[in-house]
Structures are given as C-alpha cells and as structure tokens.
C-alpha cells in the first residue's frame, strides 16, 4: 500500500476519488460533533434549537456605495440614486429595489472597519474572524460553525459551499480544527462526478469492498496522526451520505416559478440550491459569487451584478419566512472589504476596508436595524467602528454560542473562538 497517496480532500471531489482512497476506516467517525471543545455542554443546548447559517460571499468586494450605504449627490456618490425602504428613514441604492421592500426583515451594519485591503490576506482574514495571532491557523466561519453546532441529524456534512467553477473538499478552511471540518464544495451546485455506484458493481460487491476498505483504513490509521485518518474516513462518509441524497441535486424537483423568482442566473440558481441544502438540514451553507473586484467600470458592473443578487436574496428571504426557517437561520451577505469612495480613471473603485457594510438577517437579529453610520462622504465610519471580530461575536451570540465562555481545544491549547478584544454588537441582537 502506498502511504504517499494523495489525500482525498486535496482533489476535486468525485466518488471515485472519495471511495478510491486506499485508507478507508472501518469506524465512521461521524460527521462533525462537538469533540474538541472545552465546553461540550454547549452542544446539548444548541441541539434543541438547531440553528443554521446561510452565508453569501460576494468575492472581490461589493461597493457599499452602490448597495447598503449610498451617498447620492456627494463627491463620491456615483451616478445612482438612493431609494426609500420599508424602514422609515432608511435608504439604500436603487440597485436593490426588492431588498428595499424587505428592509424591515434584515439588518445592516454600516460601520464595518477592517484591516486588510488585499484580497490574498483579506478573504482569509475576514472569514477566519481576524483573531489575534497565536501561531495557529484559525478556521473559517463555516468550519467554526460546523465544529460548534455539529451536523444535526440530516446525515449530511455540516459545511457545504455552492460555488461557481469546480468543486472539491476544501480542507484549508478548517485550519487547526482538522481537515474534516473543511468545506465540501459543489462546483456549479452539482454533485461530485460519478457519485453513484456503477451499475456493474452489485450491492453485495459494494458492501464487501467497503468492508475491505474499512479494514485497510484501520491498518493505515495505526500509528498515524488522527486528523489525517479522520479526514479520509470523513470524505468517504460524505460520499455515502450524498449517494443517499441525490434528490438534493435533482433540479427537476424545483418548480419553474422558483427558478424565475431567484433569477435565471448563475447566482440565482446557486442560491436556490443553497436554500435546498439548508432545508435538507445542512448546518452551514456558503453560496458565493465571483467577479466583484470592480477596479474598472464599477458602475456598469454593479448595475449588472447587484440587481441579480437583489432578486435572489429577496426570494430567499421570502422562502425562509414562508418555510419557518427565518428565526433559526442566520443569513449573512458580505465581501472581504468594500470599495473606495474615490473613483479612479477606469471609472472603478478600488479596495476599501475603512468603512463598509454587511447585511444580515434572521436568527434573532433585530429586523430593520441599521447599525452605525459613515461620514457624509462615506469615507470613514462616523460612529463606533466594528471589526470582523465584532461581527463574529454577534453571529456566535445569535447562534446561541457565547464567544467569551466557549473555547476551542487545539491539542490541549485553549483558544478563543472570536477575537477577545471585540464584543457582540448588542443593538443588533433583538
């Protein structure tokens, strides 16, 4: 047996890759759980409430001025108008007409001020909550929630990612939590290739193969690091779970009117798939869109992009409410930073972490809340600044996790789950 086989989570996910690894373990390790927490009792309490997260990531940086914090008629305001919303006195960009009517169901933080203005550092730093540097790699929010809330009873993985392009198992998201808390990415919202058992392999043969694989994995795991072996088993378990839930990927089961409501765009489709994953019980669903880094032609780009997001997210909100998921689902939409007030020669906006906005909803957040404000030109935060650490504290609290008393156990090293210099934004919590 070649012990230098590639790790399956390093590959684009396919059944062949998942099941073909030589190191499958006999004992499935479960799909998550709360092991590794200093306060495991939190898990029992959370189980009763069953919170979930739908996290929308607009990669590259949506402009706050063309979305949640418009400054029409000012030096950096751009060409678009602001429109009134369902919350008296609150205006957002005219590019978000549907969300304007749902403003009373969402909350905006306009006082986000973060540290990084580069994508390479910013994406990870934001999604890891920018904790203090302790020489370890913190998990992304999705991995953190997967760890802290566990997988629930769905039998499905706790952290999935519906994304454009290719899929795979993104173990890097997990940081020190260990590879099995990485994200299972469905490229273009589709299941891993060749997921189903080939018709030439009988059920009986398949069972025998699995038993053999389990035995081999047990032997492979002896004397090796636990987390690597766990991850091998984990992806195998995931494949088995997905084989049973092919219906999740059957787009024919979705009524035509839903595709229309979400918008027949890549984002609309992915968001609708994300909703279905949420309904299936997955704890953390990330849906993302690429192409928001509008250094050039920013206004035409936002004119094209933002209404598509507006349509999809408004439809999603309706569904969360109609299906009784709004109260238990934390909906977040954000990027790694905002965009410069200054408009460059390419009629674009560059990266701006100094003052930007995040939209969120559900899960006990105060509907219609608008937290903080920027100055008249939108260049800086005029009220208390909120870093990503504040948002992590707030989100954890909304999910029922006290970020001050809950810690990770990283091989006996206790680590805070959110930046201890920050706190939850209390006025955002209903």
């Amino acid at each position, binding site marked *: 047996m070649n012990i230098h086989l590639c790790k399956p989570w390093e590959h684009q996910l396919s059944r062949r890759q998942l099941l073909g690894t030589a190191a499958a373990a006999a004992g499935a390790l479960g799909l998550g759980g709360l092991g590794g927490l200093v306060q495991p009792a939190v898990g029992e309490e959370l189980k009763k409430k069953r919170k979930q997260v739908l996290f929308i990531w607009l990669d*590259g940086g949506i402009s706050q001025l063309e979305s949640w914090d418009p400054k*029409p*008629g000012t*030096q*950096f*305001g*751009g*060409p*678009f*108008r602001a429109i009134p919303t369902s919350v008296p006195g609150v205006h957002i960009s*005219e590019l978000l007409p549907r969300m304007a009517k749902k403003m009373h169901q969402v909350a905006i933080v306009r006082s986000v001020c973060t540290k990084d*203005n*580069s994508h390479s550092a910013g994406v990870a730093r934001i999604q890891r909550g920018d904790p203090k540097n302790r020489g370890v790699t913190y998990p992304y929010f999705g991995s953190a929630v997967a760890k802290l809330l566990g997988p629930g009873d769905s039998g499905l993985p706790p952290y999935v990612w519906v994304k*454009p392009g290719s899929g795979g198992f993104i173990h890097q998201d997990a940081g020190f939590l260990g590879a099995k808390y990485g994200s299972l990415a469905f490229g273009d919202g589709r299941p891993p290739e060749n997921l189903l058992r080939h018709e030439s392999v009988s059920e009986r043969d398949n069972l025998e193969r699995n038993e053999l694989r389990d035995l081999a994995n047990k032997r492979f795991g002896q004397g090796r690091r636990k987390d690597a072996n766990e991850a091998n088993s984990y992806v195998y378990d995931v494949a088995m779970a997905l084989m049973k839930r092919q219906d999740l990927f059957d787009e024919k089961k979705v009524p035509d009117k839903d595709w229309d409501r979400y918008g027949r*765009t*890549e*984002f609309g489709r992915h968001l609708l798939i994300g909703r279905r994953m949420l309904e299936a019980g997955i704890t953390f669903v990330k849906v993302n*869109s*690429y*192409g*928001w*880094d*509008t*250094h*050039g*032609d920013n206004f*035409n*780009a936002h*004119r*094209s*992009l933002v209404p*598509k997001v507006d349509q999809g997210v408004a439809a999603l909100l309706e569904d969360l409410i109609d299906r009784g998921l709004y109260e238990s689902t934390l909906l977040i939409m954000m990027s790694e930073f905002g965009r*410069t*007030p*200054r*408009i*460059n*020669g*390419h*009629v*674009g906006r*560059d*990266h*701006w*972490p*100094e003052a930007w906005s995040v939209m969120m909803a559900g899960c006990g957040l105060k509907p219609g809340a608008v937290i903080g404000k920027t100055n008249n*030109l939108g*260049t*800086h935060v005029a009220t208390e600044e909120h870093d990503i650490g504040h948002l992590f504290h707030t989100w954890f609290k909304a999910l029922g996790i006290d970020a001050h008393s809950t810690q990770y156990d990283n091989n006996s090293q206790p680590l805070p789950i959110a930046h201890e210099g920050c706190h939850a934004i209390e006025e955002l919590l209903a």
Partner: protein
Amino acid sequence: MNIASDKLRQLFEPKPLKVIETKRQMSIVRFSPCGKLLLAGGCDGLVHRWDVSGDKPVELPAVDGHGGWVCGLAFHPQDKSTVFTADSWGQARAWTYAAEKAQPKWKVENAHDGWVRDLAVSRDGKLVATCGMDRHACVWAAADGKKLHGFAHSEDLFSVAIHPDTKSVVAGDLKGNVLQWDLASGKQARTFDAKVLYKLDRLQDCGGVWRLLFDEKGATLAAAGCKPSSGATVQGIPTVLLFDWASGNQKTSLALGENIDAFTHDLAFHPADFLMAVTSGQPGRGKVVFWRPGEPKAFYESNKIENCHSIALHPDGRRLAVSGTSRGSNGNGRVLKNGQYVGNTSPIHLFQFAGG
C-alpha cells in the same frame, strides 16, 4: 477633403495649448457651436463652463439643477444659445448657456427612470433624443420638451444618435444591439449587429455600445465600445465598428488599443473625413487616436493623457478638447494627500492641430 495619407499626421497632429484644471471629475466635454464656450458635464451634478475665446480659458459660473452625473450634453446646432443636458437621476433639460446666469427653457424631471446615458440633437435642431438604463429611447421636441416618442428596448441603453436626415433614431444597448427606429411610423426599422461589444462574464454583463455617431453625410454609423475579454475589472480592446448606413453592413472594425486599454469612451468625426476617438482602460491607460476609415491603421496615436473620457472638436475644425484623469488616480485603501482624502479630477486638455 482629399488629403494624402502621409500628410494627415503633418496637418492634424495635436499641439498642446492649455490644460484646464477641474475640481471634480467630468463625464463629457463639448464646444458650443459659436466656438466661444466649452461646457463639461460634471460628476457633481453641475454643468461647468469656460470661455475659451481668449488666450486663457476663463471659468464661468457652473450651472446647477441636475442630480448625480451629467452624462448627456449637446448643443442646438442653429440657435447658438440653447444647450440640452441630461443626468443620471433621470432628468433632461434645455437652457440658455451664453449668459453669465443660465436660464432654463424646459426640463423633464423624470425623462427616464434613472441614469440617462446619452443625449443627441437632430441636425435641424427640432428633435432631442435620450436613452437610459430604463431601457427606453425617447424623442423630445427641442422647442418645449414635449415627448414625441418612447421606444422600448429589452436591455439597458447606452447610446443614441439621430440620423442627419432626421428620419431615424438609433440606440445602442448593453448587449451590442443597435436598433434603428423610423420616426415617421414609430416602428423599428433595422438592427445593426455590434454584439462583439458585449460579453457575459460569470454574472456580469460587460461592455455595450457606448457611443453612436453618424458622419457628416450620414453614410456611416460608428458604434464604439469595448470588445470585452473579462469582467470585474473589465478588460478588453477598445473598438469602433463602422456600418454602412445604406446597406446596414459592417464595413470595418477598428481596434484602438490592447486588452488593457478597454473602452472607447467618445468619438468625433473631423470634416477631413477621419475619426477621432479617446480610450480609457486600466488606471493610467488612455489614448487619443485619429484614424481615417479605409486606412490600415491610425495615423495618430497618443497615450500622454491618462484615462480619456471625452473628446470634442471645436467648430473651427482646428482645435479640440480632451478630458482625461488626474495622475495616480487609483490605489487600495487609505490614500491621503496632506492629511486629506482627495478625489480625482478631469483635466481638460486643449489642443490645436499642427496645420493651424
């Protein structure tokens, strides 16, 4: 005018005269038909004015009343006193421009629902055409602003032009369609295919027909934009397509730069039968290009002005104005100048052709 190719550059190479510094960014510049004034539509909701009749441009009080960005600006060709302007908040208006205090003639507050992208005036001065992000092209009576036509399109509109015979209006959309509307019947007559000026990149619609312009005789229709290669920070080749008006066929495609040069922002035809264009791409990339249709390449190109957004030919045919962008216009994060966060400006470069 039949000028030998090798003489074109000798006669029409632009020689710098002055640079007008602005406090804000401008989207469009145009000379008045009398040649005395230069007007600029600002990204501050103002129309800026300069008297350029003397040796030194003299700034006149700017005209307010618009909102957002003033993107449409065209003069009445005959009466020498009226200018038509339109803004990104949907307003179109007419006003007198020569007196120190400009006087309104008419205005339509909601000419479009949102961004009016372009405005054109007919050669006979009777019609004004506008188009916008509400996917409509509209025709107005120049005298009083009465709406005469409203043509519904399926996509956002970026550009509009009226044929010199005043029988047709053309409007160019996001996806590279140029629709011709017959003004007598109010019906669509033809579609010109400029789809190379569009690309869907992931979720983003990139490009569009950014400028439409007829030549003096109305025999050629120029459609300008970008042949996009990628979205987000849009990249592509600044392109001008020339259509034969009689047949509707594309005669040629002019590539004005490289992939990072992106958009052809503005056009003007010179009476000596060549096309003048300006481009703007990645910050710092801007070009002024002169190209006589039928020739294999441009006879003049300059990249000395950063991110050029508009070009205007003086009515004497011997001068021109190009609006560019202040140097070092881009940068991530906090960029402070003397402790202040400053915006960019659009210096307006005045030139005289070498041939005088």
